[in-house]
Each structure stands twice: as structure tokens, then as C-alpha cells.
């Protein structure tokens, strides 16, 4: 068991997310579906350890997460691409390599892995560009590459193709699925597109009015 969530309540402003029971296994793929504003992003924020539930129990890799301690070690096991991503005022390469640099990976290794990921995501033509020179769709693909380059065993993607043009959606989906298979990583992908949810995974988690059903 990778994640086990029980009786979780998490409040963001006036919004309340509740999870009665939800378990996720290592190496599996899950689609999180639900209408806009239902709580999909909040659910992914909980899985990424960016939100602290006000009650309930979250067990990750067999250990209950203690939110009073530093969460850096569990956060580093997760790669998370948020919806509406923010790119730092750096070059495309530096943005993609940011997660590796904060983990202390050597500069040469970062360069190699960033180059490989850019090629894989068909982003090589963006090399040397600054974040302001990218379209919204390109920014989203760069943010995705920034997450996928981390080699994390858990990959959380929040509406990863929302701004990506149709011609690149297939590349993104294929690359994500291939990488997860190669690394035996768990993939949790939120989408409001029913056909994308079906393409990415047979396992569906629905989020309706702030309630997560698995």
C-alpha cells in the first residue's frame, strides 16, 4: 500500500474536502475525475503533502504522516505538477532542473537529465528561452517536464493537458505513461475530460462537491 487515507477532512478557506477511505497502490495509475471546483486540486495537494488535514489519518509507505515534523523527505518522494503552473524567472532548462538542484544533484547530471527530458517531451526547440517567451501550452509542458525529470515514484498531475494543443496531448499522455511504466511509478492524474481519464487509467477516483469516492 502506497497511500492510505481515512476520515480525512481538509479545509481551504470555506471549502471542505472529505475523504472517508481511499487507498492507492504502488505502480498503479489513477484518474481523478470531477467537475470544476469539486476539489480535485485540493485532493492532489493532500497527496503531495502541501496541505495539512485538520483531522483523519494519512499513511504513506506504511508510516503515518506526522504533520508537526518536517515533510521534506515525503515531499521529495512525490513529483507534482500543479494546475496553472508557475514558472520561475529563469531559463527553460533551469526551470526543469530546479527540483534536481534543490535535491543536490550535480550540475552535469542535471544538464544531462534535463536535456533528455526536453527531448522526450519534444521541448528541445525551447532550449535557452526564458519563461516569458513561452506560450501557455509550452509553459504547461515545461512544468510537466520539471516534474517528470525528478524520477519520483509517485507522480501527481493536475489537469496536465488543460492548455496543451491537441497535437501535443498525445505526446504528453504517451510520455507520462511510458515513464510511469519504466519507473514502476504511481500516477495520479486529475482531469475533467472523461475520454482522457479512460485513456490514462481504468482506476477512477471521483470527487464530487468536496467528497472523494474511491
Amino acid at each position, binding site marked *: 500500500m502506497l497511500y492510505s487515507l481515512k476520515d480525512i477532512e481538509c479545509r481551504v478557506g470555506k471549502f471542505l474536502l472529505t475523504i472517508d477511505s481511499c487507498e492507492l497502490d504502488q505502480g498503479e495509475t489513477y484518474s481523478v475525475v470531477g467537475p470544476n471546483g469539486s476539489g480535485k486540486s485540493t485532493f492532489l495537494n493532500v497527496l503531495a503533502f502541501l496541505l495539512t488535514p485538520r483531522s483523519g489519518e494519512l499513511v504513506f509507505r506504511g508510516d503515518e504522516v506526522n504533520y508537526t515534523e518536517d515533510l521534506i523527505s515525503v515531499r*521529495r518522494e512525490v513529483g*507534482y505538477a500543479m494546475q496553472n503552473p508557475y514558472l520561475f*524567472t529563469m531559463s527553460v532548462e533551469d526551470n526543469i532542473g*530546479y527540483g534536481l538542484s*534543490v535535491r543536490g544533484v550535480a550540475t552535469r547530471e542535471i544538464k544531462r537529465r534535463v536535456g533528455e527530458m526536453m527531448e522526450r517531451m519534444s521541448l528541445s526547440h525551447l532550449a535557452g528561452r526564458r519563461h516569458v517567451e513561452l506560450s501557455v501550452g509550452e509553459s504547461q509542458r515545461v512544468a510537466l517536464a520539471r516534474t517528470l525529470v525528478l524520477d519520483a515514484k509517485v507522480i501527481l498531475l493536475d489537469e496536465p493537458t488543460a492548455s496543451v494543443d491537441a497535437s501535443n496531448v498525445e505526446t504528453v499522455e504517451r510520455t507520462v505513461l511510458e515513464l510511469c511504466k519504466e519507473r514502476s511509478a504511481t500516477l495520479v492524474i486529475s482531469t475533467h475530460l472523461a475520454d482522457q481519464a479512460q485513456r490514462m487509467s481504468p482506476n477512477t477516483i471521483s470527487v464530487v462537491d468536496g467528497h472523494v469516492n474511491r
Partner: protein
Amino acid sequence: MDYLGDGLAGAVRIIVSGDADFLSIVSVSLLVSLTSTCLATLTGVPLGIAVAQHRFKGRGFILMILNTLMSLPTVVVGLMLYSFLSRRGPLGEMGLLYTRSAIVIGQWVLAFPIIAGLTAAAVKGLDSRIRQTALSLGADAHQASWVFLREARYGVFAAVVAGFGRVFAEVGVSMMLGGNIRAYTRTITTAIALETSKGEFAMGIALGLVLLAVALVVNIVFWTLRGRTE
């Protein structure tokens, strides 16, 4: 019109020949203004970041004071500090009046609210997703704070440049606290006032050209940095 033309020609001669008085005045101006700007940066930037990032009692009051002090007339600052530093004032025994240190203190009072206030505005205007993005990518608290500051860098640089522009062009503090002593506390602005009153337009214009050039550079840097933040 002749005197204007003669003044301009004389000014060019002074600049080209590297007149000793001229160089002394420019170097004193740069020295005191850069020192006060550095001190105001060291104190104002942390305050600006703290005010922008944390909610605490008195935060609104601090912002109001900073905004008020930003437009404080330089002669008022000079007058207030003069009353403290003059022989009969509470700090009179320190003997700071009519020294470069006194000008630096006065200029710090002018630059500090500008640097702190503009830094606070720059940090406040940053995207709220920066910290969460850094944390989601595995940054620890310090690394997330660092990247946050890095994102604010152009706004902070612009604040520092604006602070320098304010003190380099001020005359009230330098005149009242420095005393316009030759080769010691005579700055560009006080020298211009003095030379013009003596009818020495050439030196006044030469110094004015330096002031204009520095103001131009400061403005170019300021607007370039602002443009980068947008």
C-alpha cells in the same frame, strides 16, 4: 545668451581637464550617497520583506509611516537631524555635525523608507504560487524562501536604485548637516548652489551635467528593472 554658451564651454573644459575641485566634489557625492544607500539597503530590504510577508500587529501603521516618510522634504529631515546633532542637541557630544557621517545619517533617513516601502510593494506583488511550487518540487523551507527572494530581485533592485536616486540628488540634508565644507562635505548639489550664487556658472553646469548623467543612468536602470518584473 553669451554667458550660457561660455558657461557650457567652461563646463566641458572642467570635465575634460579633470579639475581637482570638480573630481573631489563628485567623489564626495558618490561616497556619501553610496554609503547611505548601502546602509538603507541592509536595513530597508529586510523590513520590506518582513512587512510584505508577515501579518502582525502594527503592520498597517509601519506601512503608513513608510509611505509618509517617502515624500518627506529633505530640508525637514535636515532640520530634525540638525536639532539632534547640533552642539546643544541630545547627540551633540558625538561631534557629528558638519561631517560626512552626518550626511550619511540624513541620507539614510531619506533612502530607508523608499527602499523598505518599494521592497514591500515588490514582494507583495509576487505570485502566491511561488512558494508552493518550490515546495512541490522538493525545496525545503530555506530553499523556498530563497527562490521567493530570487523572484523579487528585480523589484528589490529597483527599490535600491530609486533610493540612490533620491539621496544623490538631494540638497537639504547635505547643506544643513554637511555644511558644504570644501573637499570634505561639499557634494554636487551643495556645490551647484554655491557656485551659482558666486556667478561661477561653468562649474555649476559641469556638476549639473554629472547630476543629469547619473539621474539618467538611474532612471534607465530603474525602468529596465521594472520592465523585467512585468
